[in-house]
């Protein structure tokens, strides 16, 4: 406890903190430290346990596991390159669509297009999208979305089939419905965090932009967007992370087919979807292979987050002059 060297000073009301206050201070510090430590330990434990379970598979398959393209239980060959591709491709498509829509939504909600009350109602509705369970998105995708986009996919395939993106026709589940649903699922995350980023831009910056004689779009695109860029990038990284890990809706919609294709209408597979659909009936070696796949998914998510942080830092440095 800190000693009080000023005991001779005569005051009526001011006095040093009591020993009880110092004790409470210490206690609180201990509690938050403990909470933080638990979280770190939990992450470390999960990584350790995954690695331990996957270890036999890592020894047996090595790097071939990451670049192999067959998943055959009978032949005991396991490779997850199609799943890595499917995970990244579907998430990237979702980010393009959902990220673009989310940022556009944030602009619409914050840049005086609506009055505050309407804008808050709108925002609540968008955030409610996040409350819809994944399985409901999956069902909606199967019964509504796939029939809805089939004619368009047919037409695109027939007329623009020479473009790899439209190289096959949509027979049912596939990349396009999966990516569309993923886009809707990450939309609320991207929109909500981007809205906060735009709201954090000080009013004086907006004044400065209009004071220079910008039109509304010039103010938004040339001033507000760069100023909010680090927050918007954070929103996109979080959205992308969510898309990478999304499981249920994708397991229902992507077709679970072990192939690498650029076509939007071909069935594909993702790591999370592979895990969800294979675990229930997996034999001992396949379980170890799945653990290896889970480790790979974890690594991808981690890498994406690190990359995102780095891009955000670069943006902050460029736009705000901070280290």
């Amino acid at each position, binding site marked *: 406890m800190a000693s009080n060297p000023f005991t001779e000073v005569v005051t009526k009301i001011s006095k040093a903190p009591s020993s009880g206050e110092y004790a409470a201070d210490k206690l609180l510090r201990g509690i938050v430290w403990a909470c933080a430590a638990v979280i770190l330990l939990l992450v470390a434990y999960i990584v350790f346990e995954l690695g331990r379970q996957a270890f036999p598979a890592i020894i047996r398959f090595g790097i071939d596991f990451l670049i192999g393209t067959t998943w055959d239980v009978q032949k005991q060959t396991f490779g997850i390159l199609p799943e890595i591709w499917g995970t990244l491709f579907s998430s990237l498509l979702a980010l393009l669509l959902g990220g673009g829509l989310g940022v556009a939504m944030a602009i619409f909600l914050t840049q*005086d297009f609506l*009055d505050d009350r309407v804008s808050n109602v709108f925002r609540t509705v968008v955030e409610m999208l996040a409350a819809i369970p994944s399985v409901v998105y999956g069902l909606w995708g199967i019964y509504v979305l796939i029939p809805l986009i089939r004619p368009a996919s047919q037409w695109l395939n027939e007329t623009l089939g020479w473009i790899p993106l439209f190289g096959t026709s949509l027979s049912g589940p596939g990349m396009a419905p999966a990516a569309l649903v993923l886009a809707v699922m990450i939309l609320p995350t991207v929109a909500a965090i981007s809205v906060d980023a735009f709201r954090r831009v*000080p009013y*004086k*910056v*907006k*004044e*400065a*932009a*209009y*004071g*220079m*004689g*910008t*039109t509304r779009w*010039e103010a938004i695109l*040339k*001033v507000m967007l*760069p*100023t909010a860029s680090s927050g918007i990038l954070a929103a996109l990284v979080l959205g992308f992370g969510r898309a990478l890990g999304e499981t249920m809706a994708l397991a229902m919609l992507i077709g679970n087919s072990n192939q690498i294709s650029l076509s939007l209408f071909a069935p594909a597979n993702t790591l999370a979807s592979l895990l969800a659909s294979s675990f229930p009936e997996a034999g001992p070696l396949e379980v170890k292979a799945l653990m290896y796949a889970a480790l790979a998914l974890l690594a991808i998510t981690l890498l994406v987050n690190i990359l995102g942080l780095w891009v955000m830092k670069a943006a902050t*440095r*460029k*736009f*705000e*002059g*901070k280290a």
Partner: protein
Amino acid sequence: MSAVLAIDPTETGEFIAEPYQPEGATVIDCNVERIFYGDFLAVRDSTVPVEKNKITAFIGPSGCGKSTVLRSLNRMNDLIPVFRFQGRVDYHGQDIYAKDVDPVVVRRYIGMVFQQPNPFSMSIYDNVAFGLKLNKFKGDYDEKVQTALERAALWKEVKDKLKNSGLSLSGGQQQRLCIARAIATEPDVLLMDEPCSALDPIATRQVEELMLELRERFTVGLVTHNMQQATRVGDTTAFFSVDISKGGRTGYLVEMGPTQAVFEDPKQDLTKEYVRGEFS
């Protein structure tokens, strides 16, 4: 600043200032009848001509509407949804509040420097070049940027770090950067809303010297809390006060004239009180 006024401001409810007849040419003829924020009457009955190549200083106690009037001159107040303007602001003979006038156009000709430094989160160079790009300037950007920074007395300090963010500068430097940004496009009129209130005395002095130079090229409207500043740089001074007779706080013009006359030989008792309160 809050000098106690011996004269009861409530007695001035119907008072309307003697219109100031400038000798030289005017760029802006501002005739405020009423300015409202929602139902709140913020300013009433104020006629403020802004003369060409002169610095017109707006002074008065807090809440007297001097900033509101200044910001009405380039339609900055249009950003506030509840703002309503009654009257005319003739800029080169054209009422800028006429229905077919786009405020964006007005602000391209009448630039503004704000109370708080507000550089954009981009490089120093891009901050100054912003207005040039906006106006689709075709020509030597480097030269224009350098000239603007030199005129704003900032060039020497930043010439080796033009790529650094404008936000990395100190407060005083940021304000001079904002001035450079505003004058780079060589607008016709420059409005300055308490540009030195966030600056230390040295930076204030630099900005004041800059204003005197700018006067050669531009016409300047200056709101200031600092009466010495008005006497140092103002050619003409408009003194505003607050009217609380109707239960609100309504600003209005009390007196306007050449700065020396307003400070040394004020016609209105209220002006006398305010000016004396500051100096005695």
